[in-house]
């Protein structure tokens, strides 16, 4: 190649090419075909070889790291049995309930569900919690006032639960009730959203908070003690 360029390149003008020469000589260069040589031309061979290697490396890299052009990174897919699905659903419901409880209930009833003696009744082991699921749902829906007995102690002389001030959805009520009924050693049944909806409809006319004795009478069967 360098022979080529010498023929065309080393013009008498020692000061460099004129522009015309540059264009013409390079156009000439791109038109010339290589004359047949006895040996292989090394450079193109090396280039082809390296190019081949690169394409190989690139395609390996591509197939490894593009994640099959999916939008999301790979997630392990676990096939769950019906029971596992059910327990997963319940876990989620309870953990959602736990969050709601922490945000909206724990300030009085405490995170440990023990309440404050003399002021806020406990939820852990409370017969009000383990009674019919409608009791707790109703209390959350409308609030509760008046003196009540919880675990043998008297409460309700001061502030009363009134959740109506801040809207809460049926699903949230179902979740938080389920959490309360199954946390801290409580072991009562799940509360379902449609049940809460029904109770909301039924009590929609009610303006006041529930009164403790009234609720206790309505669901007297389910109060175990």
């Amino acid at each position: 190649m360098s022979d080529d360029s010498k023929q065309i390149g080393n013009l008498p003008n020692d000061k460099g090419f004129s522009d015309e020469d540059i264009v013409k000589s390079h156009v000439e260069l791109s038109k010339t075909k290589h004359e047949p040589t006895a040996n292989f031309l090394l450079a193109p061979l090396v280039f082809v070889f390296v190019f081949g290697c690169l394409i190989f490396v690139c395609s390996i890299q591509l197939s490894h790291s593009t994640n099959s052009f999916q939008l999301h990174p790979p997630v392990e897919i676990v096939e769950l049995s019906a029971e596992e699905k059910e327990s997963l659903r319940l876990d989620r419901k309870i953990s959602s309930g736990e969050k709601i409880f922490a945000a909206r209930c724990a300030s009085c009833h405490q995170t440990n569900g023990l309440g404050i003696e003399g002021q806020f009744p406990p939820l852990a082991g409370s017969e009000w919690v383990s009674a019919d699921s409608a009791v707790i749902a109703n209390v959350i829906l409308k609030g509760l006032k008046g003196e009540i007995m919880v675990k043998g102690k008297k409460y309700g002389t001061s502030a009363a639960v009134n959740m109506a001030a801040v809207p809460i959805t049926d699903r949230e009520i179902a979740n938080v009730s389920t959490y309360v009924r199954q946390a801290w050693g409580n072991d009562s049944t799940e509360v379902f959203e449609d049940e809460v909806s029904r109770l909301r409809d039924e009590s929609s006319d009610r303006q006041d908070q529930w009164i403790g004795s009234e609720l206790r009478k309505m669901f007297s069967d389910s109060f175990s003690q």
Partner: protein
Amino acid sequence: MPADSPDKVIDRSAKLVFSFFLSSAGLWLLTAALLAYVAAAKLTDPFFLASYEFLTYGKIKVAQANAFVYGWGGNSIFAVSLWILARLSQAEVRGSVFLVVAGVIWNLAITFGLLGIMDGHMSGHEMLEMPTEVWPAMLISYLIITFLALVIHRSRQVRETIAPQWFILAALLWFPALFLIAWNGLEINPARGTLQTVLSMWYGQSLVWLWLTPVALGAAYYLIPAILGRTIDKYYLAIFGFWCIAALAPWSVVHHLEGGPVPMWIPAVGTVMSIAMVFPIAVASTNFHATAFLDIGKVWDSLPLRFVIFGTLSYTVSSYIGVVFSLPAVAKITQFTIINEFHFNQRVYGFFSMIIFGAVYFALPRITGREIPKAAKSFHFWTSTLGVLMLLLAYLIGGLTHGVLAGQPSLPWSSSVIQSIQPYFLITKFAFIILAFSQFVFVVNVWRVIFPNPFVYFSANNKEASV
């Protein structure tokens, strides 16, 4: 150096345009140098000018990049590519008035854009931070200039084209396409979510690869044979190199998104294409260096060529380093570190600017008929070299330190990671001072040649124009 008569005619036709673009490029270069110093100083002392809201580090850094790329880069691209196209086409530059008017609009748009950034109207999209209000003006003025460049090319004497023409034409045409795509995707018909980032990253990085880089490569493909008086060695590879860049570069730029909140294929494709970029880089460096090393003494003697070869060497080295840093295993350490600064400065200072300096030193005496003192050019070369090397080494070593320390979660951020890279920021501050000084010398060189006597210049030029 006396040129042929037709060359002289061409040079005379290009004089107004070249002088205009070059002198405004010089002003932008100084602006960017000043902003770079302020930004660097702010990184060594956060209280430096801290009470001025329009000078926050975030704004200054962005303003500097914009002033450099659009101001200095844009204007010097117009100057150099118009002249090289005219010379290679053996055609006169026509529509000088339109070119100057478009240039004025371009410069005003950037001025207002930078003021907008400092006034707090920054968009946050990479290399598109200037407020949207100035985008139309930029696009329109750019299209006028490109159109007139194509007119020059269309009136060429020889139908066949050669490498410098491909690179320069492609760069001139790619920019508006990129700009329109980004404009559409970010403002007119805005994308949601991280798609915005993909788009602005693609635009910002492509700007370097498809606008600055091809112009500098084109200039090198022209200057090396023109000064050495020999054809490009293994010229048959050039066409392969050109199409490789055209096909691969727009894909490779998104590897910076590695690990981010985008589908994995985007950075993966970017990485793979970056690896493939080894090819065009090898082609260009073979072409340039094989030719230059046939006559290395002459390269050393000719200052313009010295600048150009520094630029091409820098291109080769930086591009290979870029390939290595795009590999996921390495990117894990270097991503988001000041290695980014290394890449940017390597491209715009070490490669693009150096080649443009060479082109200017080659063209200016021919156009104006006045020679720049060799000592001044030489001083510019050595200070640039020193400044660029200092800057790049500091960013490179600092960036690696940054990445390695950040990767150790037990080290607290500011009191350990950032504190250990502060010495490097100090070095970059001095490097920017040296560079600013060196660029000041360059601009003085250029202005003294363009305006040996400012009062005579305009009247003399008017006479020439009326001939």
